[in-house]
């Protein structure tokens, strides 16, 4: 069983997120840089503009379900270190396409 995990986070967390992936030996992921977005409820917009200078990055990875739990718990810990910064993860089921 594979899980798709999309992590969208304040650029400030860039290194930390990569560290987490490294620690868990998650090699397969795709990283998107300099993304604009806006927090769900109280989060500040990340627009990379003069008004809202922050930007988001995102990581999309597909990993086995057991690893996904480790990842999410690590991310939770990371988020706790700076709640105002903004870090969210979304998961859904996925499968590796056969060809």
């Amino acid at each position: 069983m594979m899980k798709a995990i999309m992590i969208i986070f304040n650029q400030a967390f860039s290194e930390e997120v990569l560290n987490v992936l490294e620690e868990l030996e998650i090699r397969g992921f795709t990283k998107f840089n300099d993304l604009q977005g806006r927090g769900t409820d109280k989060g500040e917009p990340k627009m990379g503009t003069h008004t809202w200078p922050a930007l988001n990055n995102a990581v999309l990875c597909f990993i086995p379900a057991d690893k996904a739990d480790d990842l999410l718990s690590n991310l939770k810990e990371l988020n706790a270190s700076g709640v105002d910064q903004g870090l969210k993860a979304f998961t859904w089921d996925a499968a590796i396409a056969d060809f």
Partner: protein
Amino acid sequence: MNLFKTAVFRPVMTMMIFVAIMVFGIYSTLNLPIDLFPEIDPPVITVMTSYTGASALEVEQNVTRHLEDQFSTINDLEDISSTSVENFSIVTLEFDWGSNLDEASNNIRDALSRVRDILPEDVDEPMIYRFSSASFPVITLAATADESYPGLRKILDNEIVTPLNRVPGVGTVNIQGGPTREIQINLDPMKMRSYALDINDISSALRNENVIIPAGNISIGKEQYNIRIDTEFRSIEDIGRVVVKNTEQGGIVYLTDIASVDDAVDEDMRIEMVNGQNAITLTVQKQNRANTVEVARSVLTILPELKRNLPADVHIETVVDTSEFIENSISNLSSVLLYAIIFVVLVVWIFLRRWRATFIVALTIPVSLIAAFIYLALTGNTLNLISLSSLSIALGMVVDDAIVVLENISTYIEKGTKPREAALYGTGEVGVAVMATTLTVVAVFFPLTLLTGMTGIWFGQLGMIVVVTVVVSTFAALTLVPMLSSKLLKLETAGISRKKTNFGRKLDNGIENILTKLDLKYKSILNWALIRKKWVVIVSFVLFIGSFFLIPLVGTEFMPEADNGRIAITAELPTGRNSPSAVSTMRKIEEIFEEEVPELRIISSGIGTSTGGMSMGGGSSDPNVIDITATLVKVDERSRSVFEIAEVIRTRLHDIPEIITYSVGTQGGMAGQGPPVVIDVIGNDLQVTEALAMQIRDGLALIDGVRNADLGLGDAQPALQIDFDREKMAMLGLNPGVVGQNVRSKIAGLTATEFKEEGEEFDIIIRYDRSFRESLEDLNNVEILSPAGNYIQLGSFADIREIMVPPTIERKDRERNVQVTADLLGTPLNVVFDEISDYIDNDMDIPSNVEIAFGGDIEQQQEAFGDLFLLLGLSIILVYIVMAAQFESLKDPFIIMFSLPFAFTGVIIALVLTNTKLSVIAFIGAIILVGIVVKNAIVLVDYIQLLRGRGESLFDAIVNAGASRLRPVLMTTLTTILAMFPLAFSTGEGSETWQPMAIAVLGGLIFSTVVTLVLVPVVYAIFHRKKVKKISLLEG
């Protein structure tokens, strides 16, 4: 990738760029020569022509006028003025600033070659002087001696002048005063007649006897021989043995038969006294590009060595050492700069209370200052009063950008953002405002570099230095500061606030409390003001208009007077006296100094025409005018200013009966400064203009605070005019030209040839013996040899009458001009100008052919103020343009500019309170305020926009932005104020010059900041009340 992102992500590269700047800068700094002012090359060329024996009137008619006529066609010529005095014609040509002076010199030479034929024969070859800063003596030395005095001039020439000339950088060394040797042949007219000789016969006999003629060469066998004729005089006796005539009876007439040959000294010598002793002064001028301080230093180091070769009774003292004033001023300014740095760092620390943050901000100071040194070195400038003062002015501004950036980064870090992102976001948020403030500063200072003339030299460098430092500081604020912040700043959680001492924590909390209270207070003021917008606007408007009523209280002047510790006195004695008789008066004046002025360091006096060539600013040219230079001890070693001392001297000079007029001046330090009040009475009838000028002088003297009111003309000198009876002359076969020449030779003397001894040449001068040229009768008895061979007395065909002639004739733009000059003591220039114009308009009757023109500081001030008003307008427009472009808005820059009028209100209040006059310097202060005061408003308005962009309501955005920006605004303002503070209140040497500017900036900045903090948010609210701006998230 933008600038600060690159910097944050490539810390090593960023570091290295700044290390490179520092290394290059330190190298430049070490090689930077120091000087008082930037190289000043005023476009002035003087043509000096000597016409010995001619009175001012003849010089004017026969020399000056012809020269002026020829010169008037030269290209780029702006003004032509001239002074004709006894023996000399001085024509001063003023060209447009920036015109090519080499070309001008060539044109002058061409004009001179055209005019040569029209000039009288005895006129010496005109000399062309290019006026430059090198014309001022670097060092003036005085040599005094007892028994060696008669030969002192020669001793000095050999032992001092020659070695000094070899010192690198030394241009010319002039000797003034002391006896000059000449060989005098004093004729006895009776004996001349008995041998039927005329003066020309004797002259040609002497010339023919004193020759070296190479006569070619011949070969005898294998040898080749030069043939030489050498009959040069070997001794004084040789001269006496010259045969002047073979009589028809076969007798021989020697020179000694008809004349006495004296080895004597020049009769019209200049007398110099230093500290009451007969002296010879030596003035050392530097070469054009040489450095004043270096030249002075090397001269002073070599001097003790040279002194050892002098006879024991010869003493050499330094009268004026310009390098001393320069070094003192520079060191004074350096300490001003140091204080400024300390103050600035202190302010930053108080607000941030973090050593690392303070260090980061403070680091921008050396970086930007050093950039200025690189600029100075690259453009071949010197470290001078202007560049140093500019640095001190720039200092308060260079930390501003760093403060704004760093303050914002700290806020982010306190919110919990990690240092690197905090650096990126913090810089990104205020980057626009920082760029905008820098561009406004550049918009104000850059036009200063476009000024021309004297003001251009002064303020061009100021403008360029501020632009360079501020641009570099902004560069540092956008690269170095975020990079270092991302590395050095850490989140300081309140609990584990490091190992701070108890006191440290208390201080920290104490300051924080005060600042927080200030924030809250300001917030409540803003709340209060935003509800009463109308009232705030009305009160501000009333304040601004009200300050206009203070304007009449502000006096004006051209440049502030500096206390350079030097008093220059000229005292005029009754005309017709010879130099030696003035010595007792000189003693009297020196005694006054001994009694009244314990601060005196050295006093040197002189009278008579200088013999060492006309050096600029040295020596009077009238035999009856005493000139005295008194040098005082350093400013910090005395309690009285030079102005007070001069005033004491003035009252005492009044009591010396033989002095007709006197003036006690305190200027001369600044290049090209004359008396502040110059009024020209232009018209060809000297009698009319002189009478008018005297009236003006008397009117001036009545005005409070006017000193040394005087005519440039001087009192008429007695002269004997010879009127020929042309018919009688014609019958005798004579003409005025021949007779005039002849009389001139017999009275003034004829330089026949030269006597050489030990490699030096002395003039051999033939004229009537003194006993035959002492009375009117003697003059009548001068004998003229007619073509028929008869001796005819001058009196038999000419009338001699006594007349009075003006000792100097001044001309301006080819018209005669009588100048009235005066110095001022405390009274502003505009007051004097108003009163005297009023007097001239109402109480005087000016004929239509006479023109009255104001010159001197009045003219310069009017011209400069006109330029500066234009510049002020230009700056305001440029600042608006820059801001409009930056904010992409026409309205917001307009709101920001509401802080401007109150800067001027502040300037007026500060000038009135400190009793400072509005000079060009203070005016420049007002102009640079345009760039400085809008900075606060920019930071404020930009943040209001930002908060509104984040969706806050207008009211909230204004109040919150105010609260958030209060600290950076206060910090940047305080740093600018404190950096100016030492400049405004320093009392050291040369400090007076920049004081008015610092005072103007302080007043304007303080007042406008206070008003800006309340008025600008209110005006913003008024302008933005109607439509709620729709802000797209993506919009900048």
